[in-house]
Every structure is written in structure tokens, then in C-alpha cells.
């Protein structure tokens, strides 16, 4: 057990001391055999090119995902890893890696061949002036096309969120959450590659894209704030939507699944809150129950970090656990609920092979679940039958806290 430890934490490719000696002997033996069978008749291998750098396809396959490796144990080592979660060969799963410093935030574009990392640097590691930088990456070359430096270093540094950044429907504008702890968001014009406005959202956080060119934030009073932008991305108006939950007594997760412009916010205790984000201004629609009276008796609840995601058919997937209590909302769960949000119906309950902390769903007609498990590896699961397809470990992961679709 003891000697397994370093092998486990230091990657797939480790064998132990004793094995080294054994394999040396085996190799020596093999060498003898091979010598007998060599084929000197073959032409020699040609000289190969040096300096070649790979690139990725313009359209990533449906099973490729961006893994937000938050690197909680050293915030300097954060990464975004493109991973083919259906690849069976361990060596071929990693497709590319980008750095992401100090709890950097990540967003992938769908139409643009870009992704965005909003990160921070001190000039010398932990010390020196802090700079907040938006890095715009070319998603095929993984090269940085442009770095935009924030005037004030105020971007949100927190655990990964799907909506710490948002994209306008036409993907011309990127919305980036700031928190100093005064809340605001910056609007980046992705065509011009510059910040066009920084808009205060007092008491309201995060950037849920709304309508064509609006941004909705979730407020400390249990309401919403929608900021409407003009065609240049500058603030045109702000609208407050009145409270629809009690942030003390009936808190909700700040992590909705947004499906066809409708945002579904689960509550800690299992109520769902539907918000219409299709128009210029957000509208509260309704609250409905996710949980049966039977389940409520044993305190079934949603829970986790990135506790939900959606597939391309419009279904929502959410981690849940029994015996919920104050505090367990962040602890993940043993099951995944498959929810038809349009019909307000839970279709299936899947038992996870292990504990689940975060969940993501692959693209396409046959979606697969990507569950960050209690070992901080990824379980790939077929939601049709709940079967474990494979567990992915040893891709340089330490704390892979959130997984995103790749396009």
C-alpha cells in the first residue's frame, strides 16, 4: 500500500522499484532474442523533421471535453485540458493543455474558433503587483491570439463556474464577472478584442446570457438584475426582477442549466426555479418540485460543485444525495437525476458507480456523462443504462472540478 502511493499520485506510467529491476532483466533477455530476428535488409529510417507542433481539428469530435483543472493544492498550476473521454487508449486521451493561473475562469465559444481564459498573475509568483488578463486562445493551435489586461485587478477568483463568463447569442460579446467584493462585469468586444464597458451590478453576481445582448445576474435579495447592452456592448439599461426565493431560508444553487433560453435553477432542498432568459429582460416563470414526498422524508437533495449539465436534446442531468442537511449541498451525491425540464418530469434516477462531485454531458445524440468522482478522477457513464464505460485517471489531474463541452 505504502509504495503504491507515489505510483498512484504520480501518474499512470509508474511502476515500482522492484519492477524496474525485473524489467531490466526482461529487456536484456528480449534484446538477445530481437538480435536474432533483426532485418538489416530494411532501408534505414529517414531523418525526421524537428520543430513540428500539432494542432487540433476545427470541429472537435463530440466526445472531446474541456476539463477545468483548478489545481486547488497550488493555484499556480491550473490547466484546461482537452480530453477525449471516449478514447480507450490512455495515451491518446489528452489532446491539448492550456495554463490557467490562480483559479482562472474558462469559457469555450461555439461559433468562434476560440476559447477564453480569464486569469491573474502576480509579477513574481505570490508577490508583486497583480495583473488580471483575459487570454483569447485559438482553439486549433492553442496559441494566444490576444491578451487583454484589466485596468483594475478585480476579476472574480472563485471555484469554477459555468457562468463566470458568458457569451452573447451572436458571440460578438464576452461578459466577464468581476468581484472585489463589489460586483460588476466587463464587456469584451470579441471582434475588436477590447473591453468596451465595465458595468456595476451591486449585490448581483455572475453573467447569465439573456436575449440577444443582455446579461442577467443573481442578487443577494433573491431577485435578479438584467443589464441590457446597446449594439456596441455598452450599458443601455438595468432592470431589477423581484425576489423569487429567500437566500437565507430557501437558497438555490447559482448553477442553472440553461436550455433553449430557459434557465433552471435547482434549490438546495429540491425545488426547481424556472427563469425565462429569452427576452431582453429576465422573467421569473415558476417554481416546481423535483422531489417526491417519499424522497423528502429521507432528505433527497441536489448537491455538488458543478452539480448539473444538459444534453443537446434538452435534458438536464443533476447529482443528488440522500440524507441531505445543512452543509451537504456542496458535497456531491450518489445518484444522477435525468430531468425533462420542459415537462417538469424526472425521467430516471441513475446510481453512480462511486460518489459524484461534478457532472458534464457530452454533445450529440448519444450523450455520455462525465462525472468527477470522489477520487477526483472522471467516470464516463452511459445515461441509457447507468453503466460505467471507463474511468479516466492520470491525465495530470489533481482537482478537475468542472468539465465543459468542446466544439
Amino acid at each position: 500500500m505504502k509504495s503504491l502511493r507515489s505510483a498512484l499520485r504520480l501518474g499512470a506510467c509508474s511502476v515500482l522499484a522492484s519492477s524496474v529491476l525485473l524489467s531490466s532483466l526482461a529487456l536484456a533477455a528480449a534484446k538477445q532474442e530481437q538480435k536474432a530476428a533483426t532485418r538489416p535488409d530494411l532501408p534505414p529510417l529517414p531523418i525526421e523533421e524537428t520543430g513540428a507542433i500539432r494542432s487540433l481539428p476545427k470541429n472537435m469530435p463530440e466526445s472531446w471535453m474541456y476539463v477545468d483543472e483548478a489545481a486547488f493544492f497550488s493555484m499556480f498550476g491550473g490547466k484546461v485540458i482537452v480530453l477525449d473521454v471516449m478514447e480507450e487508449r490512455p495515451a491518446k486521451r489528452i489532446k491539448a493543455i492550456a495554463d490557467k493561473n490562480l483559479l482562472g475562469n474558462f469559457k469555450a465559444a461555439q461559433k468562434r474558433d476560440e476559447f477564453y481564459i480569464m486569469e491573474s498573475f502576480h509579477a513574481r509568483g505570490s508577490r508583486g503587483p497583480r495583473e488580471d488578463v483575459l487570454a483569447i486562445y485559438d482553439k486549433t493551435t492553442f496559441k494566444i491570439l490576444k491578451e487583454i489586461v484589466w485596468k483594475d485587478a478585480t476579476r472574480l477568483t472563485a471555484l469554477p463556474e459555468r457562468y463566470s463568463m458568458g457569451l452573447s447569442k451572436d458571440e460578438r460579446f464576452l461578459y466577464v464577472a468581476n468581484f472585489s467584493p463589489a460586483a460588476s462585469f466587463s464587456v469584451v468586444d470579441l471582434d475588436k478584442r477590447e473591453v468596451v464597458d465595465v458595468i456595476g451590478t451591486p449585490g448581483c453576481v455572475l453573467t447569465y446570457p439573456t436575449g440577444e445582448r443582455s446579461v442577467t445576474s443573481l442578487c443577494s435579495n433573491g431577485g435578479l438584475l438584467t443589464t441590457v447592452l446597446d449594439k456596441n456592448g455598452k450599458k443601455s439599461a438595468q432592470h431589477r426582477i423581484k425576489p423569487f426565493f429567500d437566500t437565507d431560508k430557501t437558497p438555490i444553487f447559482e448553477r442553472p442549466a440553461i436550455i433553449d433560453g430557459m434557465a433552471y435553477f435547482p434549490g438546495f432542498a429540491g425545488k426547481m426555479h424556472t427563469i425565462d432568459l429569452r427576452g431582453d429582460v429576465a422573467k421569473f416563470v415558476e417554481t416546481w418540485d423535483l422531489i417526491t414526498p417519499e424522497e423528502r422524508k429521507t432528505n433527497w437533495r441536489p448537491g455538488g460543485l458543478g452539480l448539473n449539465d444538459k444534453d443537446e436534446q434538452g435534458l438536464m442531468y443533476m447529482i443528488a444525495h440522500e440524507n441531505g442537511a445543512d452543509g451537504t449541498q456542496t458535497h456531491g451525491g450518489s445518484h444522477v437525476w435525468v430531468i425533462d425540464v420542459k415537462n417538469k418530469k424526472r425521467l430516471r434516477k441513475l446510481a453512480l458507480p462511486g460518489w459524484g462531485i461534478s457532472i458534464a454531458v457530452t454533445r450529440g445524440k448519444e450523450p455520455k456523462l462525465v462525472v468527477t468522482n470522489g477520487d477526483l478522477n472522471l467516470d464516463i457513464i452511459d445515461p441509457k443504462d447507468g453503466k460505467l464505460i471507463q474511468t479516466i485517471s492520470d491525465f495530470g489531474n489533481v482537482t478537475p472540478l468542472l468539465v465543459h463541452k468542446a466544439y
Partner: protein
Amino acid sequence: MSLFDKLFEKTARGAAQKGSRRGFIRGLGAALVGAGSIPLLPVARAADGGQKLPQDNRLPQDSEAGDPASCDYWRYCAVDGFLCECCGGTYNTCPPGTEMSPITWIGTCRNPVDGRNYVISYNDCCGTTQCGSCLCQRDEGDRPLYRADKSNDVNWCLGANSSVYHCSTAIVVGLAFEQ
């Protein structure tokens, strides 16, 4: 559900707190709570390292209330992070070379010895990379980012010169009174 919601928190040192909690490791959730492998030593400890520590004259409420190196220790009811007690600091002092963030989150914890509820300020120590020892996550009363005053997902070292989080303290800053 939440004990804290029933209490009026009398913050004795308003300047030092923003009434909020922080907790990077919520997501690590299930697998990472507690201080399982460290034995409980519910006794007062002598100072070590040649420096007089606050613990030297601890009252029974501290000294008999459990082990400050254990995640179960009473002050940590709302802590979420690496315990400074294990990182070269103590439960209420920062390790050498770090700075204490003036912006903190607070919790209201019940002392098991005197039965009183105290307001605890969880000032983070910042400026050196993660301590990496004694990860402790207790999420009672935690709220998402929209309740910044109760959210422990934020890196509260944003109030320090360095945004790099090292460990968390738990400092008594007052008594809490029931409403």
C-alpha cells in the same frame, strides 16, 4: 435548519470582517472533510518554537474544547480550507511570511464547554502558496456567491496584497446573541 440563521451576530470588530465565508474546496466535497488521521489531543499545549503563543493562557473553553488541529474543533464550524494550526501558524495566528487578509468571512460557533455562541472571524493567511495540510471543510450555513456575506466559494485573499491563499485562521471576535 441552520443554527446561524437564528442568531444575531454581534460583530465586535466590524472593520476586520465582511460577514462572509470562503471555501475553495466545496467541490472536493465528500472525500475531503475532516482531519481523520490526526489524533485528538484535548489538552492545552505548551508553546513551541521559542515564541509565546496565545494558547499559553487559554481559558477552559478553548483548552478543554478539543484539538485545534482537528477539523471538528469548535471554532471551525464554518471554516473551509487549510487549517493554519497545521501550517506553522495557530488557529488564530498566521504562519511566518504570510499576511492576514483584512476581508474575512465569519461564522457563529457554539462552544461546547460554556455553551455560548461566539462570532468567529476566519481571516485567511495569504502570500505563500497553499499550505497543503489539514484541509477542513464544514459547509453549514454556506450560500452561493449571490450571498457574498455567506459564500465560501470566493478567494477572500482578494483583500490582501497577495491573492495567493495559504491557510485559514479562526479568531474569536465576539459573543453572538440569540434573537
